[in-house]
């Protein structure tokens, strides 16, 4: 029955070419020796070596990585708790507004999230910088983690937990020994997504950042908004490479450990 039709193959082919061609072109241009971006001057790694000497850019890269580590970890903890609350604790008081606050940020335009958090930080008069961006990213990413972990918890066999409890395990022990290992693939996928979202974000970080916390996207944005630059081609290619390898490795790992496509479930 499942015969592959020519039309279907064509649709997939066009889709994949459309999705990947721009990125491939970007990577090829990053090896262009010519300073003029559109004139091909032969292969060269010139722009990559140039990057290492660009101290502000390297600083920004480290800030972004630290930021992504901190906010992804916080978002994963909070998001997992929220998923447990929604799936396991049934109809607690205030469940509906809680669910609303989980789903709304998923589609809320970033400009509004950024603006509203900045106004909060100004109202309570905290100095803006690394930690305010971290809080903003945590808030944005935790909802994505919740949705991923929640999907895993919904098709979860609760009799395993009941068995552990019947045998005298405390709720905390049950969670650590039974529940956590079973939902770990979803938690890992959630952490990775939160990490990628934080590394990616320009708008929310622009609103909530302060002196000394210029993230990599903010730096790239200020460079490219006036036009294409060869150094930026190189930076972007490196980021594409790192993310691509990480996601493929993670999905292979997930496959090897028998939890099929945890990363692809997003």
């Amino acid at each position: 029955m499942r015969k592959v039709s020519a039309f279907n193959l064509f649709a997939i082919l066009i889709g994949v070419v459309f999705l990947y061609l721009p990125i491939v072109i970007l990577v090829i241009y990053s090896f262009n020796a010519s300073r003029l971006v559109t004139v091909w001057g032969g292969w060269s790694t010139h722009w990559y070596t140039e990057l290492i000497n660009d101290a502000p850019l390297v600083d920004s890269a480290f800030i972004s990585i630290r930021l992504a580590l901190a906010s992804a970890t916080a978002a994963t903890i909070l998001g997992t708790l929220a998923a447990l609350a929604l799936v396991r604790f049934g109809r607690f008081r205030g469940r509906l507004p809680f669910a609303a606050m989980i789903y709304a940020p998923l589609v809320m335009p970033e400009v509004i999230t950024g603006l509203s958090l900045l106004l909060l930080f100004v109202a309570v008069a905290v100095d803006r910088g690394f930690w305010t961006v971290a809080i903003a990213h945590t808030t944005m990413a935790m909802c994505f983690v919740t949705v991923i972990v929640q999907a895993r918890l919904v098709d979860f066999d609760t009799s395993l937990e009941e068995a552990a409890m019947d045998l005298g395990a405390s709720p905390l022990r049950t969670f650590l020994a039974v529940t956590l290992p079973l939902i770990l693939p979803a938690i890992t996928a959630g952490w990775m997504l939160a990490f990628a979202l934080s590394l990616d974000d320009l708008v929310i970080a622009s609103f909530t950042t302060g002196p000394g916390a210029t993230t990599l996207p903010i730096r790239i944005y200020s460079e490219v908004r006036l036009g294409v630059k060869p150094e930026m081609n190189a930076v972007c290619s490196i980021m594409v490479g790192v993310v691509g390898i990480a996601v493929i490795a993670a999905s292979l790992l997930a496959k090897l450990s028998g939890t099929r496509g945890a990363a692809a479930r997003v």
Partner: protein
Amino acid sequence: MKRQQGRSFWQSLVVRIPYAWLLAFFLVPFLIVLKISLSQTAIAQPPYEPVLDLAAGWPGVKAFFAALSLDNYVLIGSDPLYLLSYMKSVEIAAFSTLILLFIGYPIAYAIARMPRRWQAVLVLLVVLPFWTSLLIRIYAWMNILQHDGPLNQVLMALSIVKEPQAWLATDTAIYIGVVYSYLPFMVLPLYATLEKLDESHREAAADLGCPRWKIFWLITLPLSSSGLLAGVLLCFIPIVGEFVIPDLLGGSQSPMIGQTIWTEFFGNKDWPAASAVAVVLVCLLVTPIVIYQNQAMQALERE
């Protein structure tokens, strides 16, 4: 007895921690935006007034409420700049969602009809670009669409156009960027429903001599309506407030609403106006967001 107590303690903590976080960093900021949208700009720090001064006691609170006004909303209603900006955002979001539907549906449908072991790989292929930064993907299109970039070179080599066309700073570029960036958001929910579709309905219709286009129109399409709605909402709502794509690919003459908020805030330093524009935008998006929430909750309960 002791266990029961322990359980309720953990239980309440599990609910309260994320609840408190969302109240503090999602709901409260929102109320602050609402409040500032009713304020006036001031040359001060923070650059708006009135500022609620609790130290002044009850008269202070009364003075605070007396000073609130709807001026910013009147401004939005009377200045065509804002109105045009809202209309442009909705127009771009509506048309690009339609285009996404026409491109995304065949792809999702095709993936769902592939042999099982190929499906996971294809889904990963569709999702993978989404993991790289939006900024980078849009920047890649700046490369392609620039005056002497690859697109113009290819078009001229094929003698479709005689001289380089201006692609950047046009609405066409915005559409290309939006469709490109949001394609995974359309394909994934559609694939998720199409993949679960019961084959027997289609087979029954085919056995009874129903033509293929009619099978699609009468069976496949209605059965995939939940995924279709999810895909449409997941694209439409964020596109309305999009900033990066129109800012880098579009022209400066008619900004989308995300850009207007950005300029009011960073350029004009008019925080109250930016807040009022944001509040109106949320009101505009409330209906689709509520539909999306119901959809998301129903989908989880069905599973």
